[in-house]
């Protein structure tokens, strides 16, 4: 499984960030053609992102583009310019309200992939849920195409649609985050949290990240590189957690070898869900190679 603790937005018309973003070692990048680019700069940003994608140097980051909304005239041009390069892992679609939007995007992607001689289905879809309708339809959206790999509740747009605003405590997003996580797990996709807008409030970010991690989120969108180490720290298991997970895996392995059903570690029963969680802990700690985690 691919870690998506942090996905860093890079303003699409800013060469400095587009070229350097990967150096900050986020798990993923979101090259942004939507809100970060003024309407009259969409063309220049598209050319710039195209050339940066051609160059292709993004370290080990998962590379995605936030395209313009499917209710605009730009999104198809965005896809046509960028998808055929074969460097994109996925597109992040704004304001996804229903399954039909996903299907429309899925079809457009298939057409472009096939025309470019790329494997059809290789471009994943990340769905931004920025309206009450989108939140309400989360499960349908997440299951509308096998391309959908993550759902992401919105921040500002969503709270506006709910006729409220974002508070430091996040009261207004609490129920939404719980709903999204349930739908995401039911659909088998990742749940990624919205950005934390106060970029100098390190403690606030730490608190919010701990909260969404506890809810079950896989990661968070990021608007400033300085937020990355803080989020990674929260998501990185402690040495104690790692030690316990290693013990559990070892015990489970031994039990399997000896044909035993269940064993105990530190006085607690180790059953399948416990092993699964331990494997997950080690993955997050970067201690499992890819492909090894489904053992």
């Amino acid at each position, binding site marked *: 499984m691919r870690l998506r603790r942090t996905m860093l937005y890079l303003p699409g018309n800013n060469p400095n960030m587009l070229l*350097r973003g990967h*150096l*900050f070692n986020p798990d993923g990048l979101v090259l942004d053609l939507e809100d970060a680019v003024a309407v009259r700069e969409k063309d220049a940003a598209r050319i710039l992102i195209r050339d940066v994608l051609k160059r292709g140097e993004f370290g080990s980051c998962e590379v995605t583009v936030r395209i313009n909304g499917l209710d605009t005239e730009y999104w198809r041009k965005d896809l046509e310019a960028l998808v055929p390069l074969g460097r994109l892992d996925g597109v992040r679609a704004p304001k996804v309200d229903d399954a039909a939007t996903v299907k429309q995007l899925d079809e457009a992607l298939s057409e472009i992939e096939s025309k470019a001689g790329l494997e059809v289905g290789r471009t994943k879809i990340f769905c931004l849920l920025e309206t009450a309708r989108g939140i309400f339809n989360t499960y349908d959206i997440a299951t509308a195409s096998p391309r959908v790999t993550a759902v992401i509740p919105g921040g500002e747009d969503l709270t506006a649609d709910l006729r409220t605003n974002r508070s430091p405590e996040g009261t207004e997003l609490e129920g939404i985050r719980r709903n999204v996580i349930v739908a995401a797990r039911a659909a088998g996709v990742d749940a990624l949290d919205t950005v934390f807008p106060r970029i*100098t409030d390190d403690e606030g970010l730490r608190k919010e990240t701990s909260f969404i991690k506890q809810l079950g989120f896989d990661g968070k969108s990021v608007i*400033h*590189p*300085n937020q990355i*180490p803080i989020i990674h720290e929260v998501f990185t298991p402690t040495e104690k957690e790692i030690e316990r997970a290693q013990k559990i895996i070892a015990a489970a392995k031994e039990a399997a070898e000896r044909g035993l059903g269940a064993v105990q570690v530190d006085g607690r029963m180790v059953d399948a869900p416990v092993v699964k969680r331990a494997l997950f802990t080690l993955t997050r700690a970067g201690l499992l190679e890819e492909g090894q985690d489904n053992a």
Partner: protein
Amino acid sequence: MPKNILGREIPEFIEGYGKTLPFMGEHARKPEGNRAGPKLRSTFNDRTSKVVPDLKAAIAASGLKSGMTVSFHHHLRNGDFVVNAVIDACSEMGIRDLTLFPTALFGVHKKLIEHIKSGVIRRIMGSVNGPIGQMVSEGGMEVPVVLRSHGGRPRAVVSGDVRIDVAFVAAPTADAYGNLCGSQGKSACGSLGYAFTDAMFADCVVAVTDNLVPFPAAPVSMPQFHVDIVTVLDSIGDPAGIVSGTTRITRDPLRLLISKYASRLIEASPYFKEGISFQTGAGGISLAVTAFMKEAMKKREIRGSFGLGGITGYFVDLLKEGYVEKLMDVQSFDLEAVKSIAENPNHIEISADWYANPWNAGAVVNMLDVVILGATEMDRDFNVNVNTEADGALLHGIGGHQDTAAGAKLTIISQPLLRGRIPCVVDQVYSVTTPGEVVDALVTEYGVTINPRRKDLVDACQAAGNVPLVTMDELVARAHEMCGPTDPVETEDRIIGIIEWRDGTVIDVVKQLKKK
């Protein structure tokens, strides 16, 4: 043409400088003979005040004449009024052909250009920055400038390479008998470290103050027996330019990233243990390294022995919180540092000689574990250039770069790989300030590049597992790929600057830029 050990062409004789000694390696040159000394003078009880009415009277009393050498310290930094005031007065008094021997010059001194053009100043031995540097680079001075490090300068004075006729010492506080103090008064600057050697070796010492207090002043930085004349100005400097406000840790993500890699390198090194000593300076990256190191020291329960160099409020906090036992301060950068040096006995004022002179019985830099330094460029051999900019203009002084690099056990250059399109790693630096033999590592946003002669550090980083290593070849290749080929700097044959290694040998020369 003869070449020094780094392959740089150094003429045997340079007009306006004299015979050269080529740089032959860090410790190759050995001193001979005795220390030089100032003129003997006597003072008896018929003279109990050294105060003269004004600057011109002081200059007249000092015996300063055309063709002589005058020295200044730079503790008032960009707030300094004294250099300009003294040279203005000399000009009005008809004194010409002076050799200016400052410990450093700042933007505020660009006014000197008119005195260079009119012939009041004939040559400069010291750093040339900003507009003066540009003018010198374009051939605006007949005599080449001589650049020395903070340790090389006192070496030149005590060895007699440079004789100071009159040292003008800006003093934030003085009494009528010449006891001087830097940490008190409206123009307080903290340490007076760079002024000591000049005061001890000049034939005449003139203190210039704007805070005359009754005898005896206390505390005393520089005692009365070095000082010949005292004079009072309304103001010796602008406090806003003398000390900076509270220095904050950078929020720039690129600089923070480089700082984090640098601190991981330090943590992985064998020097990160109880009693570590370090110098990190006041730059954005180095201050952030200090912050990351503090976290690591806390986590691993380590305390440092001393912090050295230019001291900031951040270092003062480290002292107060017990992360270092002492501060050794040659220059105080901000108000917190000024306050601390006045109050805290563990915050020690040291002279440039004490700090960095290679030709004494032992400078503090020799006791240094780790230093973080900057660079404009570095080459495949780890030679570092801090003096010239990408376009070949001589715009920066050496500072303590050579001395701390030579003294410290771990010398780290931290610098973004790219400043705009200009890379900090090149095949060969345009001019050498500090040789690769005393440089251990370069830290950029692409990772940590270790000098191959420090295999032990490579091993330590690999063992630590969290230090991203990148070889010099990889880094240079990356710079080439991103920036493309550079055009050569076009120069005349004439030498406009001489860069001395701290022992007085010539490590490189800088040529006049061709007119565009």
